[in-house]
């Protein structure tokens, strides 16, 4: 009986192991690149909302301070979406018949919540604390982008862990004086590094500890 396999099959078999391994590696590498890539994250895409609230109008043109609506950002982990009552503190007087505001009035009347679509969503194993950041010289803009130019809010940064660590590793490049935290369109001064170290001292930031896993993951 003749042999089923030609001697060259040996070579093919050996090659297939190599090629198979390579293909797997390439596949994994591709997946990894895809996962890490900013292009697969919804950066720069405005998110539709039940009420077309414009930060461009309220924050940019009318100059209403961030904390008027997001007051808990200085006290809590949670930045805070304002309750309907906050909206109505102005809109009971202004634009009272605007059609756009119908859901807000409805919510106020029925005492039911407005349901907003989340724009900035960190993974559930991250504990991010707003108050720890805004009280230590991290500007709203640093993460949320220039919302004064956003008619509807979009994600300005891809918010991967590497991006977080850029600042946690070298906070001196990013910290702002306390009175510039709520500024949009802030221009980094030329002596940022020098000023940064000075501010870190003032805020009492322990830079060594910023790179500990337990700062965000627990």
């Amino acid at each position, binding site marked *: 009986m003749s042999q089923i396999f030609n001697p060259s099959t040996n070579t093919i078999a050996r090659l297939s192991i190599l090629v198979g391994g390579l293909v797997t590696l390439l596949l994994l590498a591709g*997946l990894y690149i*895809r*996962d890490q*890539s900013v292009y*697969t*994250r*919804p950066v720069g895409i405005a998110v539709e909302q039940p009420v077309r609230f414009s930060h461009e109008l309220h924050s940019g043109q009318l100059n209403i301070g961030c904390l008027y609506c997001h007051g*808990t950002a*200085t*006290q*809590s*982990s*949670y930045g*805070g*979406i*304002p*309750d*309907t*009552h906050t909206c109505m503190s102005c809109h009971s007087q202004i634009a009272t018949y605007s059609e756009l505001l119908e859901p807000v009035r409805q*919510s*106020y009347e*029925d*005492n*039911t*919540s*407005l*349901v*907003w*679509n*989340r724009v900035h*969503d960190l*993974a*559930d*194993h991250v*504990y991010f*604390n707003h*108050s*720890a950041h805004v*009280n*230590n010289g991290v500007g709203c803009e640093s993460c949320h982008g220039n919302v004064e130019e956003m008619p509807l809010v979009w994600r300005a940064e891809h918010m991967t862990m590497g991006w977080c660590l850029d600042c946690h590793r070298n906070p001196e490049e990013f910290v702002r004086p306390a009175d510039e935290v709520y500024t949009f369109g802030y221009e980094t001064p030329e002596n940022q590094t020098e000023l940064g170290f000075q501010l870190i001292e003032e*805020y*009492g930031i*322990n830079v*060594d*500890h910023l*790179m*500990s*896993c*337990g*700062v965000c*993951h*627990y």
Partner: protein
Amino acid sequence: MSNEHNDQGIPISAIPTTTGDELETPEDIARFRELLSKAPRQAMAFQNSGMSRRRFLQLAGASLALSGFTLAGCSPSPPPEQIIPYARVPEEIIPGRPLFFASAMALAGYSTGLLIETHQGRPTRIEGNPLHTASRGALNAITQAAILDLYNPERSLVVRNDGVESTWDEFTAAVEGLNLGSGAGLRILTDTIGSPTLASQIETLLETYPEAQVVQHDPAGYDSAVGGALLAFDKAVETVYNFAEADVVLSLDANFLADLPGSVAYARDFMSKRKVRGDATTMNRLYVLESTPTITGATADNKLSVRASQVESFARALAGELGIEVDQNVGNTAWSDMWFSVVLEELRQSGGRSIVVAGPNQPAVVHALVHAINAELGNVGTTVFYTDPVLPFPVVQAEAFSQLVEDMNAGNVDALFMLGGDPVYTAPADLGFREALENVAFKAHLSLYLNDTSVQSNWHIPAAHFVETWSDGRGYDGTASITQPPIGPLYDTVRSAHQIIGLLTGETASTYDLVRAYWEGEYSGGDFEAYWRRAIHDGVVPESTFEPIPNSLRADFAAALAEVEPQEVSGGLELIFRADPAIFDGRFSYNSWLQELPDPITKITWDNAALLSPATAEELGISREDVIELQLDGRTMQASAWIMRGHPDDAVTISLGYGQRFGPDEDSGFNFNAYSLRSSDALWFRGGLQVSNTGNSYDLATARWHDEMDDTNPIRNGTIEEFVANPTFVLDEETDPVVSLLPEWEYEGYAWGMSIDLTSCIGCNACIIGCQMENNIPVVGKEGVSAAREMSWIRIDRYYVEDEAGDMQTQFQPVNCMHCENAPCELVCPVEATIHDSEGLNNMVYNRCIGTRYCSANCPYGVRRFNFFQYTDEAPVMREWRNPNVSVRPEGVMEKCTYCIQRINAARIEAGRENRTIQDGDVVPACAAACPTQAILFGDINDSGAAVVAAKAQPHNYGLLDSELNTKPRTTYLARITNPNAALVGSGSGEEE
């Protein structure tokens, strides 16, 4: 050291063959060593699961392939989420920050003040109220775990009429349709009434129906204390102890560190005299006479095991020697004369700074004698105080309950309202309550869960949990608190006892208004609103603590005593009942935290067992986990046998609360219900027990063995004399420190550390529940515990240690993650999922963990816990108790104590906001917060003023395995210092003579 190590780093050759632990016989230990040598502990569990290696590989391959599919399909960004803000933010709520509400929980009539942590309205945690005298910031395990019952999906949710779903309105109509007349046929059967408001409602009820009767029934209540006071003083009084002033304490079968209404406060006071620090030369001394090994016996300096029936004769003899006219020659006097005379002498010399305390399981006459003894010793007014009764209706419940059953049998009861409890299950078996119930036409039952009584009743009303309804109560010393609900009822069907009584009296006011109106009626000053708000805010009604009252023995005390029938001396074995340390009288049997909480001494979870001494077991031919049949007065039950060192001979102890017909207990095929042997004239112990071995066996899941480190000298202990002579005696046994070639790492800034005082630790398990609640720790079930897969981050090891003189001591050691500076776990993690941070914490990064379990294999302390399954997939309502500030860990991930890093981070952020550093006391981990005796201290070891630094500077401070392995643990221990009476050393303390 041998090269072979088990997965805890313990050399296999060093695993002892004699641990001094008789329940684990040499054969058991040999078998266990063999298993250990073959496989690490978690693989051992795998072997038990019956899965072959081939099958495992098949499944592993399949799951790998599947994971490939899911990986390819996974989306890079999380699924879209919504944000739902309030329409109008309630006052005080800042989303992301917890709010605390003061409240109180009653157990067997006595309240303890607590703080309930809520996150946006959702109660997640119960802590002690520092302002309440019964708590002082700490709590026992049961009170903390009670929050779980709020969310239990097994709770009864609908009104039932003869088993058919009904409504409250229909029930109301049915009650209104009753022709109660003057109430001759009306009976209310309740748990012990502790609420002053409920008591006043009942007084109103008795005015409306003058012939109605209210009967209290608490199967593990304090009947004998009430009976003792009546016998001694001819009136009901409350006895309050001040252990902080007592130099000598004699406990007559009283587990006063756990079982009394004031136990949390008592434990704190008692331990305040045992905080041994560098210059200490004295401490208090505790003598314990006990019938079942308890944590109080384990804490004792000198302990004597006797049968429960022998305590009375001891009390009689003690009273007689002190000059009290009493018949001494009754009962069983077979206790040690030497022990007796030493104790008597010491009490005499204490000069009014001693306490004699009797246990609730002892008959009234022992309590009466103890009152006389305390008076004779001059303790009254210095360490023992009397106040007005805390309970509104302080009566001997057993008598009234027997009368009720008689009335029911005679057909005199037309309508019976049962408020709480499960009397069909808990009634003494001789009364025949179940049968008597059939003679009652209208039976209504209010309870949290559907139980045996509910199904025997015409009407079942689901009860409100105490966290969702208003009420009030008084603590052991009379301190009143308002039970404030931080949340409305989860289900609109639930009702409280206040509402049922209100229905009968035609009261229409809300429960809140009732409670408020009661206290308004009690208040005589001006501005009630301010007073009321203060009371609710603080959780303590101002100036409500009872003042001591002058009290003296009744004139005819001797005659009254002579009338008491002495304890009958019975031959044969004695059966001792006790409330279960975890599920109490059975009311917490649905609470999985408490079910899985190891018994403080035996470490058994999920079951009760018949405890008996090694000698008795041998005599009867019983081995561990044999199912034995207990026969008493012609009634029988079965129980799995557990051989327990330190248990008196010729006696068997059994816990109440298991073997419920209706409930979470699985049908084991056996009757494990201890109530089925209980009779109304001997609620706590009785002679004449017959024991036979059925030949079956029933496995018990014990948390012992899994991680303990017998061979490594884990607990260092000595007497106060040894300590005074050589304060650093604990270090004598240490080998030379291992020298490292690497320079020491300097920790600048904060450096977190913990100190655990083994002298103060009473092994009460409060820290375990505190940790479980704070850190979202799942339960694994009985099978999981059997397979050594329990998840608790802090465990309490229990060791039996025999000293040179042959005296046996029971010792406890809480063990959590040591946060070693040279952590062995970190070196072996292939993915850096467990690494050190700049403050010395051993961080565990769950999302990096791939579940190799190398770390737990390399941890010499066995503190790492692995999620073998997705333990956290619970009913949606069960997720509500979780702490939002701690990750919920999925299957396949390692976890362990974090030193409550979420609290450290919260304190850091808070301090940052206020532009200051973290102060000592800002960070209190959950275990330390729960500890009644403040045995656990935590803080920054770089802060020279911190309490933890002072503790670690003590001469008897040592690190577990530190000198052997140079792990440099951040958790260190203070050696266990005891104060035994030298005259009794070698007298076989712990063993009967």
